[in-house]
């Protein structure tokens, strides 16, 4: 099964004779089942076995709460995978499939429904907070996505973006010069902002303490560079962007290949830590998933930029203009930063020192509503209308705070907030934490 999930999908070309058609169908079915079997672990079995279909999770999902469409009901999303599991793997289900509505793994209708359900899920894991059995629906759907990819039903857009990232990793020399050229301009801007002609944006800096992984574009490079230069620490900017479309696509092979580019770079430069920019899923991939995929223990620490920035501030390396920001400010806990990674306090510590009027949203922290754009939704144009519709709860939440500025350390969330800002006429300004620091620190 090694190569099924990478680039090849399992062939479903029809053939002339009925006999070969049946054989091919069986072979495809077997191949898809192998994908499912390879993903089975204790947690998945328990998630599939213990769900009581009570649907207490119903209103925990912003997508179901807004649309009332069962495709987005967390228990139903997992139930689609469970039906395959019952028919093919669970002993009781194999004997009495009717009892559990067991379904074949290549059932067209089921795969179609599963595709819509799985690729719409933002992976926020809010349903897990409210489930009496703490079932991780997103984890079950990650297995669903592997099956969908193998069946040639992976999301096209995400697949292309993932392949492009892998291509860049394999051909980095092609990109190096353009990258360095762009950075020269940013470096000039940096020197102007800091009034410091020696300020720099180092790349390929062997032996640096930190390898900083930014996003495409310079908007997460300039403010971070300002903070790194003020903190006077040794760092190196990664040649790769943090975003991982392989993860959204749900292909652990591709996701690993994309993250591996950064790991290899960090090993080559012998850095002590990888610092992931304000990008929720990239942080989760590096911190919680990569080691499991690669089956290796990384020789360096993984931290998020906000975590490091909070440390700089506490150590006095970066000095803030205390309570400098007069307008009301709110903070959005990105799911992958808060609920799924545990950073609730660091960003709030920074915010409260800068903002004279900090207002938390309700609910917040692990109960916070997803922005509605995670899981790669902002990259899938076919879901634009859907994510704005289902972002309604978030928009209402923001409105209630009366804040003029919303700060959040996740690019996905920020892009979604931009859409919500426009669609719901929120009239707010959206900022990253690093911009908020860079604009309010003592230069």
């Amino acid at each position, binding site marked *: 099964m090694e190569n099924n999930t990478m680039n090849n999908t399992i062939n479903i070309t029809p053939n002339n004779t009925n006999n070969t058609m049946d054989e091919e169908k069986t072979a495809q079915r077997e191949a898809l089942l192998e994908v499912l079997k390879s993903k*089975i*672990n*204790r*947690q*998945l*079995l*328990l*998630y599939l*076995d*213990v*769900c*009581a*279909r*009570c*649907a*207490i*999770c*119903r*209103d*925990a999902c912003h997508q*179901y709460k807004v649309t*009332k469409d*069962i495709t987005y*009901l967390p*228990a*139903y999303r997992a*139930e689609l995978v469970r039906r395959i599991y019952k028919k093919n793997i669970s*002993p*009781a289900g194999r004997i009495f499939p*009717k*009892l*559990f*509505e067991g379904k074949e793994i290549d059932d067209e209708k089921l795969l179609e429904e599963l595709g819509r359900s799985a690729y719409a899920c933002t992976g926020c*894991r809010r349903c*897990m*907070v*409210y*489930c*009496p*059995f*703490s*079932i*991780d629906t997103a*984890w079950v759907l990650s297995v669903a996505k592997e099956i969908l990819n193998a069946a040639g039903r992976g999301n096209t857009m995400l697949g292309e973006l993932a392949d492009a990232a892998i291509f860049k990793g394999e051909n980095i020399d092609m990109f190096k010069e353009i990258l360095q050229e762009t950075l020269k301009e940013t470096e000039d801007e940096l020197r102007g902002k800091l009034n410091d002609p020696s300020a720099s944006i180092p790349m390929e800096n062997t032996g640096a303490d930190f390898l900083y992984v930014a996003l495409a574009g310079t908007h997460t490079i300039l403010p971070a560079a300002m903070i790194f230069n003020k903190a006077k620490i040794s760092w190196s900017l990664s040649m790769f962007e943090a975003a991982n479309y392989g993860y959204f696509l749900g292909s652990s092979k591709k996701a690993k290949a994309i993250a591996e580019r950064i790991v290899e770079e960090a090993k080559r430069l012998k850095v002590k830590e990888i610092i992931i920019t304000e990008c929720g899923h990239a942080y989760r991939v590096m911190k*919680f*998933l990569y*080691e*499991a995929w690669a*089956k290796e223990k990384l020789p360096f620490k993984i931290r998020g930029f906000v975590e490091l920035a909070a440390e700089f501030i506490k150590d006095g390396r970066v000095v803030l203009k205390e309570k400098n920001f007069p307008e009301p400010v709110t903070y959005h806990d990105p799911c992958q930063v*808060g*609920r*799924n*990674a*545990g950073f*609730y306090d660091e960003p709030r510590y920074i915010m409260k020192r800068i903002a004279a009027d900090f207002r938390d949203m309700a609910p917040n*922290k*692990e*109960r916070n509503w997803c922005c509605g754009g995670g899981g790669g939704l902002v990259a899938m144009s076919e879901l634009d209308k859907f994510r704005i519709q289902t972002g309604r709860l978030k928009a209402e939440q923001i409105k209630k705070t009366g804040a003029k500025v919303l700060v959040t350390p996740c690019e996905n969330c920020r892009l979604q907030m931009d859409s919500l800002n426009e669609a719901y006429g929120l009239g707010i300004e959206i900022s990253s934490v690093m911009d908020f620091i860079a604009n309010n620190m003592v230069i």
Partner: protein
Amino acid sequence: MSGFSFFAAGIMVYIAVLVFVVGMAYQIYGWVKAPRSAVRLGIFPKPKNKGVRFFKLLKDSFIFPHSAESDPWMYTFAILFHFSLAAVLFAHFRMVHEFTPIANALGKEGMEKLGAIAGGTLGIILLVTILFYIFRRFFSPYKDLSVFEDYFIVFLLIVIIGLGDHLRFFAKISASEYRAYFLSVLTFRPFFPEAIAEKGARWVLTMHVFFVNLFVMYFPFSKLTHAIGTFAVNSVRSDV
């Protein structure tokens, strides 16, 4: 005991226990044998230490307070159902041995009265909550989410609870008579004591035990394993 009673309220009990033990052992073996997820799947905040984590596991498994925020109605009925069921199961131990300290304190009549009031109340709560369970599944989205198994289990429970309530409210069988029957099963010589054998209610008792046997046999192969699996999954919740 007639032929069917001897089977349903006698022999079948042993079969049911055997199927349950073997089935559940097989199910648990399946869970344990599967590799542990290499990814930690918990949600934050992280419990401060092992003690806190253990306490949280008990809280999440037994009272799952977070679910109350999401669906207060279902939560209320679920808690009422499960705690009543636990209490009723516990009360059935009276058929192994009289709860002597309570019986001594209340006297024979007082004890019967307590049994009637407590058992009656719990029996009604169980019936009402299980009817809510099935009633809820008649409506969307629960209807579309449900599979045959969901109705099958609720059907078994309604029959078991209904017959149990019938025995509690209408059958004039005393605790000591039940105990004589129950102990006969435990000592592998199943029989109905005369007081039961003479009454029509013996059929109610037989069917009550029969459906309990079905329930117990079906348990390891169904979503009912949530009663045991819940500790494992709720432990993963804090695994960060």
